[in-house]
């Protein structure tokens, strides 16, 4: 059994071993600390000054990463908490992403900005956010997110192959969960990964009552809801988990579902789900029976106290209720 954080760690080790052009920067990433979430453990010991602990300078380290990338290297920058990527917004949006196109010819900027995101850990309003939505629709910028189904090494290779900056979100609760292996989720559900999208299904159900679309950090809450929906409400769902959040890859099988629901951790308003619905509506217009259901965190700061935080963020019971209601 491999935890997601360990899996990411192994992927970074392999990546830096096979590609001497890869550099990694971030606060407290060096050994023995190995990063706030231990994802970079062992890298500085093994790869020397290709791995650097930086000052508290999110804007500048994103810029330094972009500079390394501009000069022919590949850079991975870790932002300790995704919330602080706000401090790097200018470097990412106005330099790294734009530079790939604003000089009238393609300029490669192979830069991956890793952002540990999400709540449900009681870290409070400035250490729990899912800021994916703020980066959607920036020309030249792609958004990816870790899932428990996708091989992280393949995702890093995929992001670098784009030659353009990518944000890579890694849910902080997901870190502690295990990677799924061998196509099996549990006694009920099976999964397959095709390209950017993981698909979780019930054996033998070709036409699910509902297809749920989530990002990696929402997988377990969605699976919990799917189990209850099946066993208690007799509603069969399938789950689609794109590792690339933007631009959205082709999501398979939706035409055969009675309903579509998109669930995310970002706060309400200008959401990733709204963007998914925008992409899906023209495609599914003739087969949709009702509007796509969009679930997000409340339009709210994320409280520190767990009993308050729980209410603001999407929990599995809310997913279940929303789907039951939509289908009733």
């Amino acid at each position: 059994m491999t935890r997601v954080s360990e899996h990411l760690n192994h992927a970074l080790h392999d990546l830096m071993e096979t590609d001497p052009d890869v550099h990694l920067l971030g606060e407290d990433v060096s050994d023995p600390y190995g990063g706030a979430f231990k994802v970079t453990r062992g890298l500085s010991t093994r790869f020397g000054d290709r791995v650097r602990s930086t000052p508290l300078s999110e804007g500048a380290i994103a810029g330094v990463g972009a500079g390394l990338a501009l000069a022919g290297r590949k850079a991975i920058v870790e932002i300790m908490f995704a919330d602080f990527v706000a401090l790097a917004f200018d470097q990412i949006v106005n330099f790294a992403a734009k530079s790939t196109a604003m000089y009238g010819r393609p300029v490669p900027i192979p830069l991956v900005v890793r952002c540990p995101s999400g709540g449900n850990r009681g870290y409070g309003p400035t250490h729990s956010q899912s800021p994916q939505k703020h980066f959607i629709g920036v020309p030249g910028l792609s958004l990816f997110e870790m899932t428990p189904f996708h091989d992280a090494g393949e995702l890093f290779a995929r992001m670098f192959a784009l030659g353009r900056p990518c944000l890579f979100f890694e849910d902080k609760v997901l870190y502690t969960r295990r990677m799924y292996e061998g196509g099996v989720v549990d006694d009920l559900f099976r999964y397959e990964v095709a390209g950017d999208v993981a698909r979780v299904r019930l054996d033998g159900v070709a036409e699910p009552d509902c297809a749920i679309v989530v990002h990696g950090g929402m997988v377990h809450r969605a699976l919990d809801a799917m189990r209850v929906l099946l066993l208690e409400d007799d509603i069969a769902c399938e789950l689609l988990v794109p590792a690339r959040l933007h631009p959205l890859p082709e999501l398979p099988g939706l035409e055969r579902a009675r309903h579509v629901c998109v669930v995310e951790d970002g706060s309400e308003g200008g959401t990733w789900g709204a963007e998914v619905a925008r992409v899906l509506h023209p495609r599914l217009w003739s087969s949709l029976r009702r509007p796509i259901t969009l679930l997000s965190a409340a339009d709210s700061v994320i409280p520190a106290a767990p009993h308050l935080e729980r209410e603001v963020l999407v929990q599995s019971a809310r997913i279940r209720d929303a789907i039951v209601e939509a289908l009733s």
Partner: protein
Amino acid sequence: MTVTVPAPTGTTPSGARRTPPPEPEDLELLLLIRHFELTLLRLFEAGELSGTTHTCLGQEYIPVALSRLLGDDDFVLSNHRGHGHFLARHAEPYGLLAEIMGREGALCAGVGGSQHVYHRHFLSTGVQGESLPVATGVALALKGTGALACAYIGDGTWGEGAVYEALNMAQLWRVPLLVVVEHNGIAQSTPTAAQMSGRVAARAAAFDVLHHRVTSLEVGEIRTELAPLVAMVRQDSRPLVVEFATHRAGPHSKGDDTRSPEEIALAAAHDWYDRYARLFPEPFARIDRERRELVERIAAEVTARPPSAWERP
């Protein structure tokens, strides 16, 4: 510019040489903060607290020294390591613990938690570097009133560009801003030498901002040393950077201390707690016990309270 004041009477970490006894109220406050922080770590281990917390173990004397130099109208901005800053300003340990535990009576309904407290003229936030521009704005608003804005930041926070943008404006516009730098030589796991080129003093000097370095660990001594400087911030309306050479006796947050045993021992050797216990066994032992028992009662009482209620806007 660096202001020169008479050298402090100086104590060595090991030596008793000329250590003045702390006043009883100061000792009470020091020990209240100490036991508050130790209790938090214990509650964490017992699974009673969630999220994270940053204790100020070893650094308690800084806000305690400053407490009497600040007035009711002064505005304090604090950071992630802010429990001591708060308790030295407001004698409300119940409210603070309730905030950290998400219980009834919480200062901010349990929304902010350990790192995000806004109570009277005290405000903390968990994003490093954010506070200094805000403190400059507050100081601008206070300019001419005799009150000042006081912002606590760590040495590591000097990595953030906003610190410099704020210092520049603070000096340009002559605002009454007291920047208290708790230079404990480390940021999370990274030693200052590995993340700061040059010195805080030179950085302040680059903006013509007054800078003063405090090496004393004695509350009374520090107060005497700083009183005329803080008065100058108010009267002349100008920023001042006071840099404390200090030591973090505990982990960064809960259990994440990767320092070597020697480094940890060095920090512990500067801790006022053992030194005072040795030098002033009475009243230390008595006050220590009283404060420990008080915090135990506070923790038991607050733990038993119902969860905090919050009306979402």
